[in-house]
């Protein structure tokens, strides 16, 4: 994996690979995640995705993608640490399977045009596109209640990190999005384009020189001025007393979320600890909360590396709330006290190695990793993480578990309960 500077505050990550059927492209702007701008950035990429000067509407743009053998183009908005990463990912069938065709340059050109020459009317973004994407984005944000599991996970972070950028939703809120005017979006577009960090990414069979050449040409007209650097992630201690937030909705299955903070800087040890706690289907949470006590269908934990959080999520019968909370805490206690069998420890390290190695078998996974590192200013690499995980000792796992402090419990339950 090689990352080079192409232009001022513009970087290209190139990963040579012949193992995929497709070549993968990405162009992402990176800005600090802020309440005022989250919705604007999200709306902007969706508006830009509607068309360019050359392909001014969805019909023309999709026809162009079809002719590039079903190339895919997708606007993306992600949260990486306390930054918002937004732009486009794209992929097309690798030229090896289409003798005589050249797809790399047209794909790079298209990405450049999406940012630099959007479809306009009277020199401004098109009002009809802004109207329809604003409504769609607001609908999409509201639709997060449809998947109760994701909804509960988001609400836990929102409550736990209230007042911190990490608690913000990657898309902003529906109310904020609905208030963005055409004029506001236009000036926002003009303001961020020269200032935002741009991260470009390619994974495929083409050599670095050709890729760098194609992107340099495609983004030649990008203005560069007043660079805004990505934000460093802030850390905060847990409150003295764990907060409990309850919410009621018309659901059959209740959702339990528990959030912990850690000040441990020993990231590899927290990774192994989290994997043993609730990271796999052989973790303590899965084997005890689900398999032994049949309290739930799922129970798992996630380590938010850049922010130093561990969150637990589970779907339970509302009546089992007390038992589930007690059991989850009891499992954490077991880790603190070093109560585990050796296979749990070996298996966790092995499973982490497996998932790190498997990342290299997915172009989208590599892109997400690379863009994430670039955004949080990390210097992790897959080989280094592999080594670090293998070197973790049981003692370090105990310390990692002991560093977890309960912060917030979020409980979503049915109306009759």
């Amino acid at each position: 994996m090689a990352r080079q500077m192409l232009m001022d505050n513009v970087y290209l990550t190139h990963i040579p690979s012949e193992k995929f059927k497709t070549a993968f492209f990405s162009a992402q702007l990176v800005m600090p995640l802020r309440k005022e701008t989250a919705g604007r950035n999200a709306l902007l990429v969706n508006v830009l995705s509607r068309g360019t000067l050359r392909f001014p509407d969805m019909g023309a743009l999709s026809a162009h993608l079809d002719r590039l053998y079903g190339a895919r183009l997708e606007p993306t908005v992600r949260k990486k640490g306390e930054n918002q990463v937004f732009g486009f990912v794209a992929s097309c069938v690798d030229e090896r399977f289409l003798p005589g065709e050249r797809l790399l340059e047209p794909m790079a050109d298209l990405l450049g045009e999406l940012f630099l020459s959007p479809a306009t009317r009277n020199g401004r973004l098109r009002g009809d596109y802004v109207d329809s994407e604003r409504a769609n984005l607001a609908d999409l944000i509201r639709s997060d209640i449809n998947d109760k599991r994701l909804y509960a996970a988001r609400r836990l972070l929102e409550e736990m990190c209230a007042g911190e950028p990490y608690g913000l939703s990657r898309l902003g809120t529906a109310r904020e999005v609905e208030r963005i005017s055409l004029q506001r979006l236009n000036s926002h577009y003009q303001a961020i384009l020269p200032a935002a960090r741009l991260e470009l990414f390619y994974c495929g069979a083409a050599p670095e020189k050709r890729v760098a050449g194609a992107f340099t040409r495609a983004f030649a007209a990008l203005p560069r001025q007043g660079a805004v650097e990505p934000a460093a992630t802030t850390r905060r201690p847990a409150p003295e007393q764990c907060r409990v937030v309850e919410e009621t909705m018309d659901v059959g299955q209740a959702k339990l979320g528990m959030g912990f903070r850690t000040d441990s800087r020993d990231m590899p040890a927290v990774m192994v600890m989290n994997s043993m706690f609730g990271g796999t289907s052989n973790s303590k949470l899965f084997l005890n909360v689900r398999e032994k006590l049949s309290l739930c269908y799922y129970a798992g934990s996630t380590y938010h590396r850049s922010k130093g959080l561990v969150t637990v999520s589970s779907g339970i019968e509302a009546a089992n709330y007390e038992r589930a909370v007690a059991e989850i805490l009891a499992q954490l206690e077991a880790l603190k006290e070093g109560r585990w069998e050796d296979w749990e420890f070996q298996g966790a390290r092995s499973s982490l190695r497996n998932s790190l190695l498997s990342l290299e078998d997915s172009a989208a996974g590599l892109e997400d990793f690379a863009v994430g590192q670039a955004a949080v200013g990390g210097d992790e690499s897959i080989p280094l993480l592999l080594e670090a995980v293998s070197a973790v000792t049981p003692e370090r796992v105990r310390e990692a578990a002991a560093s977890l402090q309960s912060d917030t419990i979020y409980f979503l339950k049915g109306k009759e309960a």
Partner: protein
Amino acid sequence: METREYPRLGETVSRQTLANGLEVMVVHKPYHAKSYAFFAVRYGGMDMRFCRDGQWRDTPAGIAHYLEHKMFDTPQGNALQELAKNGAVENAFTSGSMTAYYFESTEHFYDNLRILLDFVSVPWFTEESVAKEQGIIAQEIRMTEDDPEWRVYEGLMACLYRESPVRVPVAGTVESIRAITPQLLYDCHRAFYTPGNMVLVCVGNMEPERVAAIAGEVLPAERGEEIPRCYGREEGPLPCCKEKELAMEVSMPQFLGGYKCRPCGGGEALLRRSIIGDMACDVLFGDSSPLYTRLYEAGEINGSLGGNFDIMPGAAYLYVGGDARDPRKVFAAITAEARRLAEEGIDETFYQQIRRAAYGQAIRSLNSFENIAVGLGEGCFRGFDYYRLPEVFDSVTKADVEAFLGEELTEEHAAISIIRPLDGRQAEDA
């Protein structure tokens, strides 16, 4: 083993039918770090009624899925832990017509393969462990009951089918699974989990001969008897009801419209039919179709509109759905567009453009080891070679797609399932 190259796909496959009837396939992937094994049985949620030893019997809805959950138990404990020790990521799924167990690992592939073959072929159920699973599966079912995407699909199946078990949820219901006992599970395992009714597909950097040798060693020597199944009485061509509606905690209405299509036999004709059905979806409501653009620009739909063509044993249907403020209006527009395309014909340039895109999509799907394994495995059960996709693709014409639109996607074959927000939900948020 017989090894065959597929130059148009850049793929190589080694195959062998073992003496016990098991089909073994190894797809060569020399540059990947991970290896993948997929062990599947031709037995799914729809196989509730079958004949064994001359006796027809009915089993509870959800039993194939229940069996899938319980197969991980072994006399020594749990196979998940065995695989976990080697860092393997394992999982399983049950569809209407198939149950599959698979893992992915970057270390100890052959050990993991032995564990997989062993726990799937040796049943171990106790009264206690079967009873305990009731709680877990009941929670899994409860979770799907809160999932609007699942509920809208369930509603559509109930509209389209009268008799076919395709209308019964694969996991069963909280009530139906109560009737499941260890003895029933043993009976179903003995009937269906036989080498002659199974397939093993491995994808990665491995020795095909060694894979076949391990399968021969671990699995039983007998192929097992062929089990006749019954998918209900012959279905008529029309849906049994035109519409179902349900209110849930959702932010805006969502729908799934469907067309009851003629069932399809096996062989390469099935692969061809499924390509035609997929292309009909692309032409009719794909992202680049005139209808999609028109509906999107009018604000009738958002980016969530999509659909698919599914062929199940004794049943086939095409469905399309997503969020829409006025689902009936959107679905009516889709049905009207199908009729227009069938009558006026598909524009030649547009058809060629869709064809290119569909071909690219077919190649792209082979990035996923799971797609490869499911495609080859299903092909094996239903009598076609999935990797002949480019050749079969070449044989499909514009007239085939037009005929499909005109004959299958008609008003009389159509039905719609709708989930609307609970009263007051939208007002509350506005």
